[in-house]
């Protein structure tokens, strides 16, 4: 279980939301436990609505959980802060701020000197390949570029763990593949611990050391799939047998879960 070397430990996490229509509450997930090694890249997949976003928000400390514990570097997570970096699904960039001013947001909130922040930002702007766009506003950027800003904004605070919620979901297939490759390159350079939520099974396998598969709601961890494909990986590994076998395996678990949850919904509908 909890080895002292673990970066992030999640123990027996449970979360329910007060239901809006009926009395009582809706269980989102329960008994979720796993631990993450430093610099490990973990993906989280599962049927839609099983609580992946909720799980990430709890890890960040944005919303409270009912039971269980989260330890980051051995310390309990209680609130959001610069030790965690969050990359949201669609660009939640402030539309009235330039690329530069969006990227330094986290430092600004900590009260870091503006000139210093901007100098630091140059490095991250170069890292995500946005040099020359510092003074552009978000609406002047493509979706892919906005997500690069989103990523730089999370990286610049130098977080202990990077939480990413379907960051490439709104991108077209080509841009998504390019971003995946670039993310791996950046991860290689920064050696961050990453928790990456996605719907794309091939994306999860391509990026990760391990893929955590959630069951349908109320969610539990169905399986943690280890990805043994050696690094560095190029996009061509997506066609290798090892890769396709893993994808098939993860896909069959999720399909099974989706069918189960559909059956359950039908029952609830009848009642």
């Amino acid at each position, binding site marked *: 279980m909890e080895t002292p070397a673990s970066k992030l430990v999640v123990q027996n996490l449970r979360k329910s939301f007060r239901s809006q229509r009926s009395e009582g509450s809706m269980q989102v997930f329960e008994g979720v436990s796993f631990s993450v090694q430093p610099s490990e890249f973990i993906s989280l997949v599962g049927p839609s609505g099983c609580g992946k976003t909720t799980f990430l928000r709890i890890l960040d400390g944005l919303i409270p959980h009912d039971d269980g514990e989260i330890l980051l570097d051995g310390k309990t997570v209680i609130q959001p802060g610069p030790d965690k970096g969050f990359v*949201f699904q669609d660009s939640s960039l402030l539309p*009235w701020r*330039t690329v530069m001013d969006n990227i330094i*947001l986290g430092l600004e909130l900590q009260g870091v000197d503006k000139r210093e922040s901007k100098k630091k930002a140059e490095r991250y702007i170069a890292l995500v390949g946005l040099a020359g766009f510092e003074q552009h506003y978000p609406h002047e950027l493509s979706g892919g570029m906005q997500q690069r800003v989103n990523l730089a904004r999370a990286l610049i605070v130098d977080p202990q763990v990077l939480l990413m919620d379907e960051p490439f979901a709104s991108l077209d297939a080509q841009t998504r593949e390019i971003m995946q490759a670039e993310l791996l390159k950046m991860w290689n350079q920064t050696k961050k611990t990453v928790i990456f939520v996605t719907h794309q099974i091939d994306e999860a396998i391509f990026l990760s050391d391990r893929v955590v598969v959630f069951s349908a709601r109320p969610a539990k961890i169905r399986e943690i799939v280890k990805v043994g494909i050696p690094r560095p990986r190029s996009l061509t590994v997506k066609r290798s047998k090892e890769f396709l076998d893993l994808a098939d395996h993860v896909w069959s678990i999720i399909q099974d879960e989706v069918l189960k949850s559909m059956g359950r919904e039908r029952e609830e509908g009848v009642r």
Partner: protein
Amino acid sequence: MSAANVYRAHEKKFDAVVSVVLGLALWELIDSFLVNNPLVLVGPSRVAASFLSLLSRGVLARHVYATFTEFILGYLVGVVVGFGVGVVMALSRHTKEVLSPWVTIWYNAPVILLAPLFITALGLGLVSKMAIVFIAAVFPVLFNTYTGMSTVDGRLIEAVRAFGGTRRQIFFKVTLPGALPLVMTGLRLSVGRALVGAIVSEFFGSRAGLGYLITAASEAFRTAEAFVGVVLLAVGGYATFEVLKYAERRLLPGTSIEYKGFASASIRREEMSCVTKPCVKRSR
């Protein structure tokens, strides 16, 4: 640069100037050949002559000063109070529930018609006019501030929270700048209402001001003088509008189509429903 290039560079301005000049010419022609009756219509040339005469006698300065003071004082107080109350309503659910019926009533009531009461109560001078201008100006700003603040995209707030933003930082770095386009819209809407408030309240009883000038001149059949008042009001309203437009451009740099459209078009329709019903958070 050739003439064609000069035209292309200033196309919009050029067209506007031509439009104004032609309009004035048409007005002059109608006056001289069609309606040749100085009691009903006076052309630009006679208005200009009257303007110069009023100006040289020092009469105009007095009236412009009176109206300007009423307008600017009532407007500024109205804008500050409207903004403040709008912010408080957006931050405190309780305050919102308590104030919203009153705000709705006052916003929709034809307050101008209360002008005689104000004049009876507060006298013929500055204070009664200021009060009416205040009431005319306060609500558009209040509504738009409230609506702007309570419809700021929740995802932006969450993003700032995720990076450790405090409540205070969220207010100053997201809610306030996010509401700014609508606040500016409110400021612009209030200008027209405030000007009308100032003039109409002068109609009901005053000793000076452009509204006074217009009524006094009409009653004495000095139509040209009345026109001077009207033209000056139009120019004043236009100038205020331009100043605010300029301020808006300076204050809202990242204005995308979406952001801007969200500001000016969508909300004016919604502004009423937001105070009477809870506002839904904007999300795509």
